[in-house]
């Protein structure tokens, strides 16, 4: 579904140039759950941002089901993003001024879904995420795990083809972390493609395939046999 070729990204400041991505090639098949790992500064978050169209690389190609995405302008990128992608962040990134319900509803509003259908969709996902009794609360009133569930719910409510997760368990204790990982696995099992950046090999073990990055290169790739066998 995703085919990335010779992707390069350089960060420039006045004094130094840092090459974050140095000619990366990568593919992701539909329905796959891919983990990207590597030490700090290896470029994994940059890669995820480029895949999420939040950042622009210097050169290379990024095809999403045969559509070249790097040539799109801002408006087209924004439209493509809201129709096809969902995001989950380490620090949840919920809007503090909106309730749980409103936070989840927001992407549907941007996708111009009619109000009655929005209500239906949000209620469905709230039920699925097991946060029904929290729908009127504000983010600060929830625990970290609950906040991340809301964030996942928000990422899923538009039924995106691709979910991008950036250290989704980074701010959570292990039991809440596991809850979130199980949630992602369930999601993957229903057919959603997931790309996740993580530090934790425990989290990575939930995925089909693990890609190791260092200094902007892919240095190794490992297929997670146990998980694949599970699938079969």
């Amino acid at each position, binding site marked *: 579904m995703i085919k990335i070729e010779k992707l390069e990204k350089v960060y420039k400041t006045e004094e130094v140039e840092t090459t974050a991505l140095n000619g990366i090639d990568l593919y992701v098949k539909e329905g796959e759950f891919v983990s990207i790992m590597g030490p700090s500064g290896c470029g994994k978050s940059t890669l995820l941002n480029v895949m*999420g169209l939040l*950042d622009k690389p210097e050169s290379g190609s990024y095809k999403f089901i045969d559509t070249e995405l790097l040539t799109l302008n801002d408006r087209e990128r924004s*439209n493509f993003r809201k129709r096809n992608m969902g995001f989950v*962040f380490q620090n949840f*990134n919920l809007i503090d001024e*909106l309730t749980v319900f409103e936070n989840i*509803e927001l992407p549907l509003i*941007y996708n111009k879904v009619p109000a009655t259908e929005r209500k239906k969709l949000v209620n469905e996902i709230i039920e699925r995420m097991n946060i029904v009794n929290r729908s009127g609360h504000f983010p600060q009133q929830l625990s970290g795990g609950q906040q991340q569930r809301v964030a996942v719910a928000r990422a899923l409510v538009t039924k995106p083809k691709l979910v991008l997760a950036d250290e989704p368990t980074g701010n959570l204790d292990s039991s809440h972390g596991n809850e979130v990982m199980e949630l992602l696995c369930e999601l993957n099992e229903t057919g959603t493609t997931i790309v996740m950046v993580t530090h934790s090999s425990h989290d990575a073990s939930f995925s089909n395939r693990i890609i190791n990055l260092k200094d902007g290169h892919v240095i190794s790739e490992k297929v997670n046999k146990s998980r694949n066998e599970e699938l079969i």
Partner: protein
Amino acid sequence: MFRLNLKIALRNLWKNKTSSFINVIGLAIGLAACLMLLLYVTYEWNFDKQAKEAANVYTTMTNIEGDNRKISGTFEGSVTAFGPAIKAALPEVMYTARMDYGKENLIANGTNAFKCKSKFAETDIFKMYDYEFIQGSAKTALNNPNSILLTESTAKLLFGSTDVLNKVVRFKDKYDLNITAVIRDQAENSSNRFDYLMPWSFYESIDESAKSINWGNYSYITLFRLKENADLAAVNQKIMAVIKNNTRNDFQTQALFPLSKLHLYGKFEDGKSIGGAIEQIYLFVGLAFGILLIACINFMNMATAKSEKRAKEVGIKKTIGANRTSLIIQFLTESMVLTFIAVVIAIALLELSLPAFNHLLNINLGISYFNAASWTGILAIVLATGLIAGSYPAFYLSSFNPVQTLKRKIGSKGQWSVSLRQVLVVGQFCFAIILIVATLVIYRQIQYIKNRPVGFDINALVEIPQDGQLKGKYELFKNELLQSGAVSAMFQSSVSLSHHGSNFMDVAWEGMTKPTNTVLFNQVATTYDFIKTNGIKLTDGRDFSKNFASDSVGVLVSASAVKVFGYKNAVGKTMSAFGDKYHIIGVFDDYVWDSPYKSNNPMVVFFDPGRTGYITMRLNETNSLQSNIETITKITKGINPAFPVEVKFLNNLYLEKYNAEKTLGILSNLFGGLAIFVSCLGLFGLVAYSAEQRTKEFGVRKVLGASVANLMQLLSLSFLKMIAVAIVIAIPVSYYAMGKWLIKFEFHTDISWWIMPVAAVGTLLMALITVSFQAYKTAKANPVDALKYE
């Protein structure tokens, strides 16, 4: 979407109470000040524009011919022959109406007598003004010479009701007139106001000079209504021809001018309007929007200072699909909501302060809540304010890159945004300092003019109008008053001591080189004790005296008149006026009358018991003021029972001359103060925010041993630097601007050296107090609280 944005806006407002308060209150004050000034401006702007046909109504201006056929002066006035002659000759003229300038005259219902403003006019005045008739109609109102039209409040004053048709009132204690109409009171911003109106035919029957059709006596107003789209320049050309036919004069002595422009553009030079009150209107409009802009700047500064907090929201929204447009709309919605709340408070503030404002300026302004235009105006201001205040934050915040906002810190590093904020603060304080300087200079100028010697002691002088029996029985009146001991001296004169306006040019003198005189002279007619009573300094000769029978052809002249004549020893020399020869018996120093801001025309004082007008008395200062006034009132009432007694103090009459500049002084004081307050409010907000941002830093510094003074300095210095920059910019600007303003006055003060330091130190001090209040609070805070913060 809108509903959600509204929710975010309201919840944000609620969460940041300090900054919301500063924003809303600042904007509300700015809007209230702006609306108040605009009300005043509207009032002035609509002068004489109420009638449907106002745009087609013109008044007649007279040009005074000076040296070399130049126009030396222009005033509103005309001759009795002008109106009929022009109407007969010009097809553009639809209607014309002659009238007098109006005067306070006695009107009575039985013993219920009042001095009210009278006016005589021809009936075509109803074709120019849309009077609203409560009783009677325009068709019948002034047809009969013995008819009279009252305004609603005059009818109520005299009869207690407006149901007064066909009742009789007595004019000047002499003429019985039949009430034929009652109209609603005219708008206050109207030039030709009256309390009662009488027909011109009646005026002709009681006043010879009104009856005689002549081209020489410029004592009347003549209004015209021209056809729509009439070309004024062409009309005035044709008028020139008519004047030439009738007077053999090839100088354009009279020309039409739009009545609706007279109030704002009433200053003439060389026969052309060169401005007038409109300059003040521009000033006030500038002031109104200046204050509003200061409040908008507060809003922008607070919003961009908070950008770090809002950046996260922008980032999230962008990742889940918001585009820039929708974010811009969101931030604009937010500022619109805020402006809307502010305008509601502003209208409340306005309602609370309008009575005091009206009282200060002696006008009657109000918000017309049922007027679509005023709501459109308010709505336009709200939209403009919301847009101005919201646009910069909206474009700035929505431009954030989502990755940066979500991953990295943003805001304080944006060099550009910080410097723009500084520029805005500097701009705000520049404006505030200029206003302080302006206020001080205006105040000093008013004081300077007030302290200018009038030329005689005005404190113990009073005047009364010489009405009714006081004309014929003046000698009796004088004897009784002098005997009573209330008055030490008195004289009668054709005009009041404080106001003359009786100009003439028909003067000749010994050794005159020019064929005709081109200097405008002023005339006063009086009898005995003129100098003795008023105490004006005689530099040569003597006052009129009963010992010299020849004094009936004697004149007193002012020092400036002697200068025009070119006499070395004026006493004993002669001059002629209106063809008669007069002997100069005394020379007196020029004194202040009419406008205290400019030097006056040369003056000639004639001896003429027949030209009555006012009686001026010097009170006996050994008695109490109250008993003097009581005695004068009693004696006046005894001789002239039909008229109310109006004793006016000369010093009050002189005080009234400063009204125009007093208004300017009050407005600049009031709105200058508000501008500074709103600026300080914004500064307070910025410091509070900056302190909040640096709480942790301060905690660490305190743990490491920083003193409260250190921390206060740290927080205050950057802000005070901005004020210093503002001072450096504003001082020369205000020095230049106020210098230009002062130059307009013939008599003016200088900009004292101390004004600039006072304005600079004052502003700095106010800013310092504002900043240190917050700085002290932050610096005193317990370091542990600060460290726990994150």
